[in-house]
């Protein structure tokens, strides 16, 4: 009997934890996107006001933050410094896919990020301003959607976790 109770409790807890994990991933994604927005605003300042090269802009921006995004920016700056004669968009894509692969960012976020790198550094300062503005708009939209959906989805994921745990318990018993 006790074994059954323990098993049921473990199933409910595990399913609830799965729901909580989904909520945490969603919050982490929101945090990452917000941090990315902050870093891109900073990058815009470096490019538009200080008129520095991408290498310096990425380096300075990367040094102001922490975590995976900072690692991405500093890593791209290092590659630009060493200049292996490659294309910048390719460099950016490779680094983004390597460094951010285990984060909570979705495929759509990664696609936007890679697309941003394709146009960065191309043509004049007006072009940089536009490219950054478009990416910031994408980020704003994603953050806004997450903010709007967060309370609802949090409840949903938690609820689904608990309910699926109970459901499994009933079935198994």
């Amino acid at each position, binding site marked *: 009997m006790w074994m059954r109770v323990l098993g049921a409790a473990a199933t409910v807890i595990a399913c609830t934890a799965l729901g909580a994990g989904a909520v945490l991933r969603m919050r982490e994604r929101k945090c990452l996107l917000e941090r990315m927005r902050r870093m891109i605003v900073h990058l815009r300042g470096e490019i538009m006001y200080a008129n520095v090269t991408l290498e310096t802009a990425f380096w300075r921006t990367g040094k102001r933050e922490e975590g995976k995004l900072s690692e991405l920016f500093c890593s791209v700056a290092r590659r*630009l410094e060493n200049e292996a*004669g490659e294309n*910048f968009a390719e460099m950016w894509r490779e680094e983004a896919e390597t460094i951010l692969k285990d984060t909570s960012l979705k495929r759509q976020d990664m696609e936007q990020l890679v697309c941003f790198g394709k146009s960065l*550094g191309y043509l004049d*300062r007006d072009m940089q301003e536009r490219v950054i503005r478009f990416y910031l708009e994408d980020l704003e939209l994603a953050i806004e959607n997450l903010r709007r959906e967060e309370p609802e989805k949090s409840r949903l994921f938690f609820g689904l976790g608990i309910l699926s745990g109970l459901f499994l318990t009933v079935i198994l018993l």
Partner: protein
Amino acid sequence: MRGQDGLLKIFPDRIREILTEEGLEEKNTEEIRMRAGAPLIYIYKNREYVLEGDKRAVIRREDVEETLQCAAGYSLYAYEEELRQGFLTVQGGHRIGVAGRVVMENGRVKTISPVTFLNIRFSHEIRGCAEHIMPWLTDRESGEIRNTLLVSPPRCGKTTLLRDIIRTASDGMAGARGQTVGVVDERSEIGACCQGIPQNEVGKRTDILDCCPKAAGMMMLVRSMAPEVIAVDEIGGGRDLEALRYVINCGCRILATIHGSSLEDVRRKPGISSFFRERVFERYVVLGNRCGPGSVQGIYDGNGKQLFPEWEGR
């Protein structure tokens, strides 16, 4: 400091391979020319090489564009103003001249696009080339540099000599006291600044206003950096001369260069002639290429009396 890596760094992979096979050393490479649809040409140890037989060495339009992007660190926007003037100075102090289709806006050059011709000139500073003339340019008692005008035809090394005089005066060598030097480097030729950092040695007491018009730059330096010496390359315009007067009235010393084949040639130029009458400059250094670029043909005092070489003056 600079090996082959420094030279290759500004090229994309395809061009790197070709140059690696040619075995060029940066210190002996003077110029590399890339023209879309034409073979790669380079000048090495004063000799021109055209890679005509090699099909791979025919430059494609993408090669020119990629080289420009690569050399500019994928940040052409940061070189917008320089590009408008037809050149950019990249890391290492190398100068890339560009040509192609010019885009105009309101009667002004907006940009050059597409760029289809590149002339990459490698920077080679000659440290110590001014040391033998410094005793003539320095006041023996105070160790201060005298107001000096370098006169030279094009490609005779006046900027190289000016750079070394700046370095010597700034570091306090060859009889000169270490002085604060302000440099207005309108075309990034003296310091070869890349993103504000001098790539050539200009001395430890030197401040540079890079890509700044000479007249405005001289005024700014006097107001902001309190220099003892101000150095400018290729003076000539009325506003430059006005600014020179202002700087001298503020008590700064002047190091300047001007295009000219002789002292007489410069003396005849409108504007600068009044400087001769007023003996503003205490020393004139005339350069030529009789014994190779950068050879000093004569040093004269403010009255035009030849001081060096002394045997010629007698």
